[in-house]
């Protein structure tokens, strides 16, 4: 009796899971399928083709490279700024540092469009800067920094980094040596989690980027919007397909890397 009930519950859960998965996956699959269909209105029977994908590549490959360039530059900036910032904030832990932490976190609550507008108002006059991809980089760095700082600070709070720092200092290590030898290696899980978030967010960021871009500094999501608005449905879908092909191996690789390094640094406490 009990087993029948367990069985029913299991089947119910399975069905629900599959349903949810299907709800999410089917549109993605259809969309990607559309990208390799000769004529979407006639359906798959019109034949499969790579012509749309090639067309996307020709039209938009620069946006793909730019997106990756911006994503990894954003990562570099948030690493260089975020880890020392998290370290300093954690060590000070007074009213000033808590205020700074709140300010850093603020961009999460402000719509991307508002940040973009503020950047345009402030720096729009520097036309060379305004026209380069660096302008978008600044927006992305502001937007993603809190994710890096927060996840690194979470690790610092968990490992009593202050005592570790004092321990290293008592052994003669300068502040810089302490940072490299003890602080960063022990904050690695947080750094990896933060990096994953920063890269993902930067690659997919649309609001802010859309406001900041120029015709010559389009990123992948901006290009996508552009193609949805002005191209054949098949082209837009092929673009989505390209996006998936680019981002899924990247994210998988980063996850595997994080998991591997996490395992190497031992069991989680």
């Amino acid at each position, binding site marked *: 009796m009990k087993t029948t009930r367990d069985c029913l519950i299991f089947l119910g859960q399975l069905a629900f899971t599959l349903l949810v998965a299907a709800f999410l996956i089917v549109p993605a699959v259809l969309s990607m399928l559309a990208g390799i269909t000769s004529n979407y209105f006639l359906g798959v029977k019109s034949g499969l083709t790579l012509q749309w994908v090639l067309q996307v590549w020709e039209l938009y490959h620069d946006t793909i490279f730019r997106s990756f360039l911006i994503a990894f530059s954003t990562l570099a900036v948030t690493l260089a700024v975020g880890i020392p910032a998290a370290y300093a904030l954690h060590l000070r832990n007074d009213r000033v540092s808590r205020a700074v932490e709140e300010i850093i976190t603020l961009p999460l609550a402000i719509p991307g469009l508002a940040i973009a507008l503020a950047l345009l108002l402030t720096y729009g006059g520097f036309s060379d800067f305004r026209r380069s991809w660096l302008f978008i980089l600044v927006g992305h760095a502001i937007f993603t920094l809190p994710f890096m700082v927060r996840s690194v600070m979470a690790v610092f709070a968990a490992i009593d980094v202050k005592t570790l720092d*004092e321990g290293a200092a008592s052994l003669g290590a300068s502040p810089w040596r302490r940072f490299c030898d003890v602080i960063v290696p022990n904050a690695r899980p947080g750094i990896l989690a933060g990096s994953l978030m920063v890269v993902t967010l930067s690659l997919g960021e649309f609001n802010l980027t859309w406001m900041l871009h120029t015709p010559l500094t389009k990123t992948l999501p901006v290009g996508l919007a552009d193609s949805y608005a002005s191209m054949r449905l098949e082209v837009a879908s092929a673009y989505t397909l390209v996006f998936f092909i680019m981002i899924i191996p990247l994210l998988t690789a980063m996850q595997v890397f994080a998991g591997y390094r996490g395992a190497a640094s031992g069991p989680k406490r």
Partner: protein
Amino acid sequence: MSGNDKTNGHGVALRVHACAKTFADGTRALEPVTLDVARGETVVLLGPSGCGKTTLLRIIAGLETPDAGGRILFNEADVTRVPIERRNVGMVFQSYALFPNMNVSDNIGYGLKIRGVSEAERKARIAELVALTGIAGLEHRRVDQLSGGQRQRVALARAVAARPSVLLLDEPLTALDAALRERLRGELNRLLRTLGITAIYVTHDQAEAMALGDRIVVMRRGAIAQVGTPRDIYFAPANRFVAEFVGAANILEAECNAGVLLLPGGRLALANDAAAAALNGHANGRIFAMIRPESIRIIAPDGAALTGEVDSVSFVGDRQRAAIGGVAGKPIMVDVPNSTPIKAGDRVGLSVDPGDIRVLAGDTA
């Protein structure tokens, strides 16, 4: 043992001069404290929680700066403004602060690596310390795979690896269970003697302080209450606080008349000089007298100068401790051998050698 003569005598003479500490939030953690520690000496800072032991230790280490006017001298050189990483101290933290990203030998060798010691020398020194602290075979373990006692040993080995001028230990055994604590206390004692290093050891455990210290500094509310050898502190406490904090003590407040204490339970003769000293030459007056439970003997009540009634008896293992009422204002504690039959309600006589009664200076608390 060529390693040993290099190890020996690596301490400095240490001087703490008028070091006070007021924290940013206004907490006065330390009144101006002056303390001299000889080369190779082990000094224990002992006192109740919050009395400023850790603060004083951190000032010596260089993790806190003393208020203006305070100075720290290592071998007469003023190091007050020198940051901890250039003071050449070794430190053992209560939580050990081992680096989770390094294995045991990398932890021990970190200070040597920082000092640019060659890999071969480093290996030799690590091997020496691993043997000395009894953790051979664990060199390649990750530190989170060690037991509490093993971590404690690694922390100690790491702290002394680079032959520091001063070894500073902040309650290094507190995180361990009682049996292990006692064993490690013995090992630590042996190690400190072997190394001949100048050491400051913080604890709130008086047994630990007695066992380890060449001298004990008893602290109270940010100030030094007494400095002395364990025997001084135990047998000749400077005041009531020290007497009660170190070991068990009966404090009797009573009228003194011509060298005799007048108590509700009878009379108690003092040593001549003790009474005179306490009363500044006057023959009579109120004084505080301290008697340790183990220096009181139970005798037959008939004809005894001091008598009382047993309130309660508790068995402590190697002896029994009785509380005797009716002798003084409050029950007094007496250690009684297990062979002496005694039970609540018995009338007993008490006898104390005049030499075992310590007259204390009139004390604030």
